[in-house]
């Protein structure tokens, strides 16, 4: 094993974390159990180590133009202290990575990228930076990060700071919030479909904060949560995961993420390909579906009669809905609500029905 360990590695072992290899990191998949951790986040609160995520700072006179050149969403509408979700695309419109962009100012942005894509993303960003007056600083090794998520996330974190956390709106951030005596970057963001915060700080700060937050949240039911629950939570909220719903062979339009792609008023790599794809009409798209029998899993084939029409991108027995549900990339003729198709679970075909991808109504504080 040559996986990297986060600063919190020993804390995970102490909490009974079951460690697995993920995107080059040794991370906890669960502590007590995925379902209990999932329910803790939906009902109370959970804390995740997300230190494996990558961070890149873009500074300089051309920072705004440069980030827009790489990014599908319209950063022109961002105010200072605001966060935006979007993607970086290849020329052919498929996805390099999805990411969050934090705007400090017109000349200063902070990008948060996926652990498994860090090397590729940094190379991509640096490769395109030469035509712009910007400096690119790769900061992944400088930051640890925790996510505190769930309806009680704010009240728990508020005990540890004098800063009024309710003043941080959804998809906004403040750098320099003093939590438990140390400065942190705090954003009201997450990957669970619940209200909550993501906290970035140097390793020593996060190492100390882990225990402090666990103790502060214990009475309110906060639990340490692993990657297992992180995936079931994001899936129920229909948030995409790179390598599943988006990848270097799937475009954002096919993934149903058109809302985060602005084809007008912006100019970014891959835009022409998406305009062409839109004009020609999509040939396939990601849909939600449910099955009475059989649990869908990534890679399972989807059939209409004898015809292979697509594959499952993510599927679970949903801990919240107690149903077998999935997302699948299927031919465009099979994407309307109520369409029936079949999913091959091991050797048998089981009936499935297309339903809304909004399996779980997100509980954000707007």
């Amino acid at each position, binding site marked *: 094993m040559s996986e990297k360990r986060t600063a919190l590695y020993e804390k995970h072992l102490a909490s009974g974390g*079951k460690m697995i290899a993920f995107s080059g990191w040794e991370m906890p*998949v*669960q502590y007590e*159990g*995925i*379902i*209990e951790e999932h329910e803790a986040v939906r009902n109370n609160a959970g804390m995740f180590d997300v230190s494996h995520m990558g961070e890149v700072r873009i500074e300089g006179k051309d920072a705004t133009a440069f980030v827009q050149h790489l990014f599908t969403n319209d950063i022109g509408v961002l105010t200072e202290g605001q966060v935006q979700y979007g993607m970086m695309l290849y020329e052919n419109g498929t996805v390099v990575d999805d990411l969050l962009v934090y705007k400090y100012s017109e000349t200063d942005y902070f990008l948060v990228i996926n652990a498994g894509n860090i090397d590729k993303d940094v190379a991509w960003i640096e490769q395109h930076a030469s035509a712009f007056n910007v400096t690119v600083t790769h900061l992944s090794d400088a930051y640890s990060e925790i996510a505190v998520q769930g309806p009680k996330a704010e009240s728990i974190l508020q005990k540890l700071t004098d800063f009024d956390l309710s003043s941080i709106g959804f998809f906004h951030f403040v750098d320099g919030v003093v939590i438990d005596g140390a400065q942190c970057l705090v954003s009201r963001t997450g990957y669970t479909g619940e209200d909550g915060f993501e906290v970035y700080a140097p390793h020593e700060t996060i190492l100390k904060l882990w225990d402090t937050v666990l103790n502060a949240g214990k009475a309110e039911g906060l639990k340490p949560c692993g990657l*297992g629950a992180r995936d*079931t939570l994001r899936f129920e909220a229909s948030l995409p995961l790179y390598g599943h719903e988006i990848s270097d062979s799937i475009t954002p339009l096919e993934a149903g993420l058109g809302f985060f792609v602005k084809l007008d008023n912006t100019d970014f790599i891959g835009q022409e390909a998406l305009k062409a794809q839109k004009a020609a009409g999509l040939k396939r798209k990601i849909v939600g579906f449910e099955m009475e029998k059989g*649990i869908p*899993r990534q890679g399972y084939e989807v059939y209409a009669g004898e015809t292979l029409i697509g594959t499952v991108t993510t599927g*679970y*027995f949903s*801990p919240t809905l107690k149903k077998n549900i999935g997302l699948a990339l299927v031919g465009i003729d099979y994407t309307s609500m109520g369409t029936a198709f079949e999913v091959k679970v*091991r050797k048998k075909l089981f009936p499935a029905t297309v339903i809304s991808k909004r399996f779980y109504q997100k509980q954000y504080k707007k």
Partner: protein
Amino acid sequence: MKTVEGLYYSKDHEWLKIEGDTGIIGISDHAQHSLGDIVYVEVPEEDDHFDAGDSFGTIESVKAASDLLMPVGGTVLEVNESLEDEPGSVNSAPYESWIIKIKLDDVSELEALLDAAGYTAFCEEEA
């Protein structure tokens, strides 16, 4: 991890209990713990026959599906229907939550299985 004395164990982490001519099969405490929360158990039909090492069904945790493997060869006499509604009982009571009952093909196949102490040692070695 817990084991129960008097049961036979396979290196694939199934247990087998002998009651008269009948073999009762489930998964070990070690297995349920490694799998995590179990959400579905797919069982075979009565009268199906399997050889030792064959897959007789599937057990699904939140994360993944795993094969259930026969510790010895035999013919299915009965399946535990209650697992359909309560798959989680395999987590909470692995040695009570049997999956199938079989008629053994050949009692001498039991010799290839481990006892509780042997199985505990095997799991420690594997870890």
